[in-house]
């Protein structure tokens, strides 16, 4: 076992996969000598060389395009977005090329790429360095979307994503990079967290919280506060946003009959809206209250700290809505 930060867990996973499989390579802006904007790939170029740690020009289209082409030819590519916000430049490559490749080729060509990058707010990053883009890719068939909340999951999910034969969008919440520490297994353990499996991070019976990413930690904070009021929150960490582990959610809903879905992205059209819809479709007879959501306001993430706090969900928002739900 090793004690690592969230960032180090991701770093370890990529390193070990590159050691294990010579087909795995990295491409991204300033990932070589500089080690990436957050230092995830520091030292990788020295170890794996220029061919496997490729510094790319500032073109997300090119980065993802090269990754796709290489993957089609048998490589496993990890494309880094310096900030996940910039994936929009490579949007066409992701949704029209990578996502559709297997389908278009009649099942002959799969595209094992991981498009990874720092995601989310709460760091004063303002509007182009703070977004949560999961909903855009959640909507597209052929993609998988992952966002871990703890180092062990980040480690196990990154390994699984690299080994997966489908394009995976891997969102690394930058707020967690150095704040969250935990232990991960040693390399020999070959620890994998299967994609598509949620994890109950805290059991409870008053209400079910379904969330992912940094919001898992917010929800756990809220759960600790509400525990003193006799409100027992079950916190489900989705870990994989797509495909969704609905069975874990439904089982919890059948237990608590009340659900709060939390996501950091703007409320409208968010992943939580889909989760809410599925719960009402499949578990309507088990509900004792409306499925409720806490999400960001339908706004951009402002630079000014008080405004950022106002727009993004807070622990208070969660406590507030959870209480309402508990007393409904």
């Amino acid at each position, binding site marked *: 076992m090793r004690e690592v930060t969230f960032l180090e867990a991701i770093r370890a996973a990529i390193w070990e996969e590159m050691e294990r499989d010579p087909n795995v390579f990295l491409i991204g802006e300033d990932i070589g000598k500089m080690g990436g904007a957050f230092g995830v790939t520091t030292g990788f170029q020295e170890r794996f060389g220029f061919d496997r740690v490729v510094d790319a020009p500032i073109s997300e289209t090119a980065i993802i395009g090269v990754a796709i082409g290489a993957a089609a030819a048998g490589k496993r590519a990890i494309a880094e977005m310096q900030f996940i916000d910039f994936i929009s430049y490579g949007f066409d490559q992701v949704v029209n090329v990578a996502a559709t490749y297997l389908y278009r080729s009649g099942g002959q060509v799969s595209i094992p790429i991981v498009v990874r990058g720092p995601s989310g707010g709460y760091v004063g990053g303002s509007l182009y360095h703070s977004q949560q883009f999961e909903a855009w890719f959640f909507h597209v068939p052929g993609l998988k979307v992952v966002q871990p909340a703890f180092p062990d999951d980040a480690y196990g999910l990154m390994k699984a994503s690299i080994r997966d034969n489908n394009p995976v969008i891997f969102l690394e919440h930058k707020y967690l990079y150095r704040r969250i520490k935990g232990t991960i297994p040693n390399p020999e353990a070959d620890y994998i967290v299967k994609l598509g499996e949620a994890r109950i991070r805290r059991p409870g019976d008053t209400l079910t919280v379904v969330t992912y990413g940094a919001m898992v930690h917010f929800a756990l904070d809220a759960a600790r506060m509400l525990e003193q009021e006799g409100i027992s929150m079950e916190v489900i960490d989705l870990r994989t946003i797509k495909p969704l582990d609905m069975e874990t959610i439904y089982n919890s809903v059948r237990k608590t009959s009340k659900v709060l879905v939390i996501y950091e992205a703007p409320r409208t059209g968010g992943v939580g809206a889909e989760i809410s819809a599925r719960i009402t479709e499949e578990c309507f007879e088990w509900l004792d209250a409306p499925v409720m959501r806490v999400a960001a306001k339908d706004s951009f993430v402002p630079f000014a700290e008080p405004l950022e706090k106002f727009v993004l969900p807070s622990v*208070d928002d969660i406590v507030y809505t959870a209480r309402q739900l508990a007393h409904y």
Partner: protein
Amino acid sequence: MAVAVIMPELGESIVEGTIVRWLKQEGDLVKEDEPLVEIMTDKVNTELPAPASGVLKQILATAGATVKVGQELAWIETEARAESPAPSGPPPVAEVGFYGGHEEPAPVAPAPAPAPAPAPAPTPTAGDGRTRAPGRAFISPVVAKIAAEHGISQDELMRIPGTGTGGRVTRADIERYIAQRRTAPTTPAPEPAPAPIPTTPAPAPVQPKEGEEVIPLVGMRKAIAEHLTKSYHTAVHVTTVIQVDVSRMVEFRERNKEAFQQQYGVRLTYTPFFVKAAADALLEFPMMNASLIDDQIIVRHYVHMGVAVALGEKGEEGLIVPVIRDVHKKSIIDIARDLEDIAKRARNKTIGVADVQGATFTLTNPGSYGALIGTPIINHPQTAILGTYAIVKQPVVINDMIAIRPIMNLCLSYDHRLIDGMYAGRFLQRIKRAIEEFEFFR
């Protein structure tokens, strides 16, 4: 902003009502149009909806109070925003992990309320500011499912103490109830005593003597008592009786009742004919269809007929008078359908205030329990009431011969202030003729 809850005009004759109970308590969240308070009025209890969404800040008229139309009953604070209704426990603190504790904008100062107002009460809202407040009557899907699985009836469900918002029965409540029922199978499940309905002022308690019991005058009985007293003290009652030979009507019914049921799906009784005959007569005798209110006579050229319906096997559950509207435009079949509908709804208690309001004339049928003759009391502020009594075979003289005919007494009580004897007599003659000639289907 504070919005007053005003005692509305619940009917033309209603000037006051009694608060039966508040469905929301001070501090509760209320939604616009959500039932707020139960008010007892003209023979039925009605639920007054909230005029605005917000927090029920102050109740000015408590249960049992008699309130006049236009009186303020409560205040709703519409923009209050504070904590959710957590019964206890610490409020969220600012120094939680991550980005906790954002500051709420200071609430907008409420408009000055005329009465001393307590501090703004909690207003829980959803993340997007919508308010959430199910009422006591709301049954969630899971509660409905559990009730169905355990054979708990709607009535039983409504007696389970609810701990949810507005007294709603939650999943936990019904599960607790079922668990208690299971552990104590021989004793009936605990039922909460119905909320007492105090009257104001409370009467001095009467000590019952041996063999006596004292029942407080509440609810429908009280409303009936007050209404009849008012009517009896206002109108100058006179009753005129006329005998009607109902041979053709009886014969028609005997011959057609099965076909009628088959063709129209409604039981054929005599009442639709009485309603129709009276409605036609009322158009010709509009003063009988009028109201004397404050030295003005309101004459209607339409007929909304109230039809008295006794409740309970022996009539022990009181009586209400639902209204069939625009009977002058309706066919016998329409009327028969309406009658069946109101009788059914009256008995399963789904009649609302609107259903008992606005009658211009009332029909009562003591004949259904064999009464031969009587003096009905006018349904204030109407001017007349027609009683139809038992049909009895009697020897009658026709063309100087004695024949046996089914005979019925029609007793019309009317307000002698507006109606003179001859007008009443002609009116009764008109009805008598319609029934005897029996040309309803021509």
